[in-house]
């Protein structure tokens, strides 16, 4: 997809996600991608930029601002319309699931907006996956720290070496069909309570 003549505006409460989408659209050959700040004067900014397509995150409160620009009022400088293609409900569902809504200037060919939406959905889903992985990684790190602390408590309380403390927790976890981190949490909590 090379779209040297198109201008796409991106509005997203998350600057990181907006940057990922900007990069994705630029890589797909969109000539001009502009991230607009999600502020109260958005309609003036959109009017000044004069984009062909506005891609906006569905959780942005500014979506309603764009609704006003949809030609239902006689005072709109630059009418846009929400991109709704009734023949393509799965596409719209995928877009909303990924967190995307798009507004297009009247007259733009549906195929062109569809390829922009494809890129946006891919990028947003990738971002969500990254975020999930980051959360999981943080959780794992917290678990490891917890296990280290529990190991230390056992070593002190029972005078056992490190490997044995770990083996003890692992055996307990296997017998009770729980995670080692859960056993470690119980030990740490108990130790905190017993002081």
């Amino acid at each position, binding site marked *: 997809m090379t779209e040297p003549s198109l201008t796409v505006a991106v509005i997203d409460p998350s600057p990181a996600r907006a940057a990922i989408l900007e990069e994705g659209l630029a890589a797909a050959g969109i000539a001009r991608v502009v991230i607009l700040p999600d*502020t*109260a*004067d958005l*309609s*003036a900014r959109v009017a000044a930029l004069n984009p062909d397509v506005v891609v906006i995150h*569905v*959780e*942005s*409160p*500014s*979506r*309603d*601002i*764009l*609704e*006003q620009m*949809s030609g*239902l*009022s*006689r*005072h709109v400088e630059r009418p846009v319309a*929400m991109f*709704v293609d*009734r023949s393509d*409900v799965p596409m*719209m*569902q995928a877009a*909303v*699931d990924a967190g995307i*809504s798009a507004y297009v200037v009247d007259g733009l060919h549906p195929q062109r907006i569809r390829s922009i939406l494809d890129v946006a959905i891919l990028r947003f889903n990738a971002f969500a996956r990254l975020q999930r992985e980051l959360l999981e990684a943080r959780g794992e790190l917290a678990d490891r720290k917890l296990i280290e602390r529990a190991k230390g408590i056992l070593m002190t309380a029972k005078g056992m070496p490190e490997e044995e403390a770990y083996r003890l927790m692992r055996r307990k976890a296997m017998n009770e069909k729980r995670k080692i981190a859960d056993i470690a949490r119980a030990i740490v909590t108990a130790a905190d309570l017993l002081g």
Partner: protein
Amino acid sequence: MRLALGYVPLVDAAALIVAVEGGFAAEEGLRIDLVRESSWATLRDKLALGLLDGAHMLAPLAIASALGISGPETRLAVPLGLNLNGNAVTVSRPLWSAMDPGSEDLDIVARAFGRVARDRAGQGRPLTLGTVHPFSSHTYQLGLFAARGGLDLEAAVRMVVIPPPRIAEALQAGHIDGFCVGSPWNGLAVEAGYGRIAAFGCEIAPDCPEKVLALPADAAASVGLVRAVSRAGRWCADPRNHDDLALLLASPHHLGIAPALVRRALAGTVVVDADGTRREAPDFVSFGVAVERPRIAQVDWFLERMAAAGQITLTPALTERARALYRPDLYDGAIG
């Protein structure tokens, strides 16, 4: 049965929130996840795509959604109204000073507004007013307020949509000169020192239908849900419950504001300026049995307003389609 219901954090979502958190829905065997939405457009689209099983919705937006003139055309049913009234017109302090009506009387205030708006339009710097969505009673109340002051709103004033949480900021920054919004946002703009409440919605259009419960037309759970929301609405209407209701609505996972602001809106004792001037309006926002049954006359009123605002061209076929959205029969079947 488990349902996801959408709402926008406003005082008039009370009946829906209480239906869930007050246990009325559980009594009907319903497990409900309340989903807070940050825009009406997203709430409408999620309802259209089946991502929500029902919603707290601007009555005219439900009509526009069913007609396919706002978002995808959606088969909806409105079995119950959630409230009447609740909005107010707030202007910036400089605009109020220029209006200088010297009275709270609606006609005098509206004429003062009309005079300033005409002056400004004549100087090529028209006033800018904020509303919450093109298809909202707020938009139409601004039109009626202007008309009362002898002004054609569309001709003389620039209209913009501002998300309610940003409205006080927009007023302070001078992006807008005034707005019409629901509770608690007028009170918040007054509290912040930037706004002056000029008129109550219940004065501009008495008994104005505001939010409705909108469900997919084929919703299986509607009987129990309507019963639960109706009982919750009656609970919300009882002044003895207003302290509890204010605390619930004000909590961080709903509105996230000071409970006193909600309490005043519920009581109809509204602080209108930074000096603490209070005005009483018993109908400032109404819940309960008197507001619930959806009436076809309400659809007709909105269609008339939409046509006056240039949003639709009225035809008998369109009127018929819009009227089919309101389902007093479902209400009677559930409450009867």
